[in-house]
């Protein structure tokens, strides 16, 4: 189930819909409620989708007036609707305040990339940047990008199927890296392995250039030893 991956304790979930055939834009609240129901977290819900609001201020007032002792989940109207009622700056600040607020459990936002006007086309990217979970839905598959607070980031791709009641996902296999094939023993006409006895015997053999101990050169000069004052190798460029 998709809800297993997105109904978590990560605050901001952005659904980026690029599918063009799913009715996300119209029934987003129903989708989210379905996911929450699957996880048994349908309580303490604040659905802002169908609230008549003329500006972001109305929405934030609604959030503020809701005083519940327990943290609640917020379903925001889709980004398309938000952009109709207010400017990007206020939307970003509002979503950020929800994200930082301790009385909010999770925030769901839908951004349908195809419905955003061209001059505001940066908005989906901005909000995805702020989100902890980004679900990008395309025609055939969906991918979930999840940012943990510790700094780890994962992106997984799934195929999805919607039947009457739930949205099933199945993980696409990531590029399987070829396993190392077992090395076949090469057949050869001689014996290459050593028995234990032979190994010991071999190690015991002293080899000509082997270092056995720390060696020092001990030299006692004779009385009539003749030392050159000058460097005998001076003419050589060494």
């Amino acid at each position, binding site marked *: 189930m998709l809800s297993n991956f997105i109904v978590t304790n990560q605050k901001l979930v952005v659904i980026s819909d690029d599918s063009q055939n799913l009715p996300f834009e119209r029934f987003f609240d129903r989708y989210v409620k379905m996911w929450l129901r699957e996880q048994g977290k349908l309580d303490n819900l604040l659905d802002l989708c169908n609230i008549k609001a003329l500006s972001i201020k109305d929405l934030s007032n609604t959030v503020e007036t809701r005083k519940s002792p327990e943290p609640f989940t917020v379903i925001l109207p889709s980004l398309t609707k938000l952009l109709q009622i207010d*400017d990007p700056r206020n939307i970003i600040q509002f979503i950020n305040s929800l994200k930082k607020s301790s009385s909010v459990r999770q925030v769901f936002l839908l951004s349908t990339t195809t419905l955003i006007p061209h*001059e505001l*086309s940066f908005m989906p990217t*901005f909000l995805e940047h702020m989100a902890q979970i980004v679900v990008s839905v395309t025609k055939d598959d969906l991918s979930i990008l999840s940012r943990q607070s510790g700094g*780890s*980031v994962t*992106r997984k791709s799934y195929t999805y199927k919607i039947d009457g009641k739930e949205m099933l996902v199945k993980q696409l296999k*990531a590029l399987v890296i070829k396993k*190392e094939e077992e090395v076949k023993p090469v057949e050869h006409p001689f014996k290459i392995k050593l028995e234990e006895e032979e190994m010991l015997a071999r190690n015991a053999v002293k*080899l000509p250039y082997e270092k056995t101990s720390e060696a020092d050169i001990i030299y006692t000069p004779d009385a009539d030893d003749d030392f050159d004052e000058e460097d005998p190798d001076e003419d050589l460029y060494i």
Partner: protein
Amino acid sequence: MSSFRKRTQETKAIPGTRSSLYNGQTIASTGNPSLDHILGGGVQIGSLLLIEEDPHVVYSKVLAKYFLAEGVVSKQSLFFGSLDDEPEDLLKKLPKPVEEDSNTSSETSPDMRIAWRYNDLPQVNSEQGGQKIGHHFNILEQMSSEDLKESDISTWSKGSFSELIKKLAQKVKTVKEDSVLRICLTSLGSPLWYSENLEFSKDILKFLTILRAILRTYNTIAFVTIPMGLLEKIDEKLVPRIRNLADYSIQLDSFAGTDRETVPAFKEYNGILNIRKLSALNTLTAFNPETTDLAFKLRRKKFVIEKFHLPPELQDAENPQDDIVPSLSCGGSGKKSLDF
């Protein structure tokens, strides 16, 4: 390097700084030895170091912590400004300084019996590093709050570009002449800074210009991280214009969440590091790093920048057919095994 040195008057060095070996300018450490190395030993006083953030703002934050920690340890004043990160949270998580790099203690490799002379050879280390001016930090451990108490840290976490500049201008005036102020601004220009499209581009450029003017006038260094990937969406021209205003520009291109994560060639690294700009300040020639093929990884205890190299090919190639090397025909062509 030759043993000749220009005779210079020994002026009293500002604590935590040093004169550069390349051009004699006063430099300070970024806190991370490998980042210092690729910048030519450190950041010059009065310059602006721009870090172009990785898409998920993981690694740039690590570097910011290094930068602040270095300031705390070398007893410099700090200014931290950000709308995205809570200053208190970030300052709590500064890495702890460690005495000496434990890696330098030579690990004894198994003794070689015959080729024993090779035992003495140093191990190859592709990590970028060298003479150090800063301290070493362990990102696994955190600095105690007592260390922080003594240092002079100002923070800013609410407002607009103009308010930040005002605050900064006040702060630099309090810095004494024999001290350095470190300015660290993280996620500058992130969505939370956004106002209006045109205004926003104008604001951020104006801000950086004024910031640079402040930097040049006082003993300051600035470390600014900017999410370039987002600003690109607003205006493509904005990216080169911002780079132009910085003195150093380093781009962190992480693999996290992309397909490159699973590519075997990149397995060892967390991302590619691109040097976008190294400028010459008060000199004619900029420092030229040995290589620009750099990759970074976040190890358990530290963030390292290495020369990028491909891993050894241990597995058989995908198509063994392609691998047959055309050889001089000695035992017939197309055969894989050699005939004796």
